[in-house]
């Protein structure tokens, strides 16, 4: 244990890792704070860069950039009422109301402080939860893996704040995209239409870049420029945070726990954690009437929650290769690329690398406090950068980055195509995150499904016979039926309006 820890320290205390982490932190802070450029996009555009780094440095950049971006999404939320990342959307109104009351420092300080606390809590959960789960996961067969992946996809559709039918359709589209190529049980070219470029299948990363970055530039073409931010001087940012911590320690802890649970669930991530925690905070608050008028309580809980989910989202990723959210989906791609294939044996064979990941999470959350304060002070300048000077860089990074992934131009075509697909889907209420998870998990879910079917000689019964497999199956099917139940419940309530005063 101690030896592995020392080894882990040795792994991360190289110049390459330190510089990579610092650079990625600054990058994450800037991208996260620009409205419309999400944390997922920041991470996706970073992947081509990680190709050229050592494994630990590559993971360091992903960890640092995603952690920072989730926090810095709070900044434009508080200053402009435009959330920088979807994960900040839950409480952007509240934070903006605080700014209008002249409490911008308190709102932003709470953002950085409780994000850091949440991130560290999430990391601790990752350290505590992952090894025992790995023990259990060692006995998993393809049946369990199939249900687990299926459950992950179902969660992704449940948490999408849209019609569940459309979310499931999005997931199916993603799975269909994953069918393309010759990497299937028969090794035959499937849906390639004779194009050699499609034989290798659609790479998830260009698809992600297209859906999250190009589609965003496309939307920017049609939406008016957000209003410029007024210049302002900030007072002390950390003042009063300790008082808040003591006053709202229960809210903070609850936020951490909710964030951890939602993060661990495959398929649900930071945005969901923030929404649930904010709603929870309002529900259990002693003064719910203050919510929406610039009250810091919900900010504390939701801020603690969304960052906690980032770290705990790595639990299913590292153990099963099933992403906790879209950022973790990218991280999985990087892990595979760097020879750290996700799986329960990772914790025994590459223990020092695992410890290095924990350490990097903790360090990232600690340096987030000073860097975050600097970022808040500079935000007035960064946020003044007009969209017309930021988007061209995004375009170039899309083109060059997708080319760099395979050193072939087909990657750029993929990015352009998925830009259109993502734009059309989003415009019509189909959640793109469900599709992305479908693409990432398609190969795995097909393999476990077909292998299981071959083992059982075509029978479906063995899918439910093993105990853990039966539990997972029940959960997954429950997730599938859940929207139907809600729908029925609403119907009942609508039938007797007098019975349900809301």
């Amino acid at each position: 244990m101690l030896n592995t820890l020392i080894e882990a320290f040795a792994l991360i205390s190289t110049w390459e890792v330190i510089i990579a982490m610092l650079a990625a932190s600054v990058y994450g802070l800037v991208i996260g704070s620009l409205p419309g450029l999400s944390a997922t996009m920041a991470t996706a555009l970073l992947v081509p860069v990680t190709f050229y780094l050592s494994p630990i440095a590559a993971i360091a950049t992903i960890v640092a950039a995603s952690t920072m971006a989730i926090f810095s999404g709070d900044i434009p939320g508080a200053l402009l009422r435009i959330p920088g990342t979807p994960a900040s959307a839950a409480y952007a109104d509240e934070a903006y109301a605080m700014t209008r009351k002249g409490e911008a420092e308190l709102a932003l300080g709470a953002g950085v402080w409780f994000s850091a606390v949440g991130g560290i809590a999430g990391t601790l959960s990752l350290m505590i939860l992952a090894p025992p789960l790995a023990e259990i996961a060692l006995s998993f067969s393809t049946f369990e893996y199939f249900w687990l992946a299926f459950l992950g996809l179902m969660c992704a559709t449940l948490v999408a704040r849209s019609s569940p039918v459309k979310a499931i359709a999005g997931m199916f589209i993603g799975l269909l995209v994953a069918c393309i190529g010759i990497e299937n049980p028969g090794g035959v070219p499937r849906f390639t239409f004779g194009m050699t470029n499609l034989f290798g299948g659609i790479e998830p990363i260009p698809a992600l870049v297209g859906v999250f970055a190009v589609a965003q530039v496309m939307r920017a073409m049609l939406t008016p420029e957000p209003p410029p931010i007024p210049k302002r001087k900030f007072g002390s940012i950390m003042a009063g945070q300790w008082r808040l911590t003591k006053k709202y320690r229960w809210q903070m802890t609850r936020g951490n726990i909710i964030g951890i649970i939602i993060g661990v669930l495959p398929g649900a991530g930071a945005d969901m954690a923030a929404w649930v925690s904010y709603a929870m905070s309002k529900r259990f608050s002693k003064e719910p009437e203050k919510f929406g008028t610039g009250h810091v309580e919900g900010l504390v809980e939701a801020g603690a929650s969304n960052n906690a989910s980032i770290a705990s989202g790595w639990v299913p990723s590292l153990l099963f290769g099933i992403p906790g959210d879209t950022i973790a989906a990218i991280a999985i791609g990087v892990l595979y690329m760097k020879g750290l294939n996700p799986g329960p044996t990772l914790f025994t064979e590459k223990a020092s690398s695992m410890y290095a990941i924990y350490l990097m999470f903790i360090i990232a959350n600690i340096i987030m406090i000073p860097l975050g304060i600097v970022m808040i002070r500079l935000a007035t300048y960064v946020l003044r950068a007009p969209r017309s000077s930021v988007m061209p860089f995004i375009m170039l990074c899309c083109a060059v980055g997708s080319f760099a992934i395979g050193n072939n131009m087909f990657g750029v075509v993929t990015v352009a195509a998925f830009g259109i697909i993502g734009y059309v889907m989003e415009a019509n209420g189909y959640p793109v995150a469900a599709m992305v998870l479908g693409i990432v998990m398609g190969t795995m879910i097909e393999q476990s499904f077909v292998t299981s079917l071959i083992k059982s000689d075509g029978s479906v019964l063995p899918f439910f016979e093993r105990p853990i497999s039966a539990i997972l199956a029940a959960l997954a099917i429950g997730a599938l039926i859940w929207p139907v139940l809600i729908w029925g419940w609403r119907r009942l309530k609508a039938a007797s309006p007098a019975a349900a005063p809301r």
Partner: protein
Amino acid sequence: MRLPDQVTGLFLVGLGAAAAYGGWLLPPVPGQPVGPNIFPLVIGSGLALCGLAIALGIGRTFEEEEEIVPLEAGQARPPTGRLYGLRALLPPALLLFYVAVADRLGFIITAALIVFVTSSALGARWKLSLPLAVMAPIFIHLIFSKLLRVPLPAGLLPMPW
């Protein structure tokens, strides 16, 4: 580009049916009950069912009303028109333009054109977009070609490093 649910739903029915049929046609693996055909079959049927449900309007109540941000004073209302919507296609078109000409013109020139068009389309004046078109490609070239050794096409204007 908000299409009626009937249109997208029926499109998905078609896509799903085509996928299921395409899967059906794939050759089975000899001696095994299942092969590469089963997964597209399942996915395709599922997609077709979802499409049907969407076309029939099931699950609509779950969708959130699109939040309309009130226009603040002094903010220009975006022009609406048939051609205005086509602007959204500019970014993917520029990427395809990159694929088509980057090898011949080289990275710097192609990238400069992309930057200029993107920033002009987003409303930048030439005082901003011209310097940007000169600086941005060089900056990106430095990072990706020099630091990360991505083989970017040199074309007509190779960089001195």
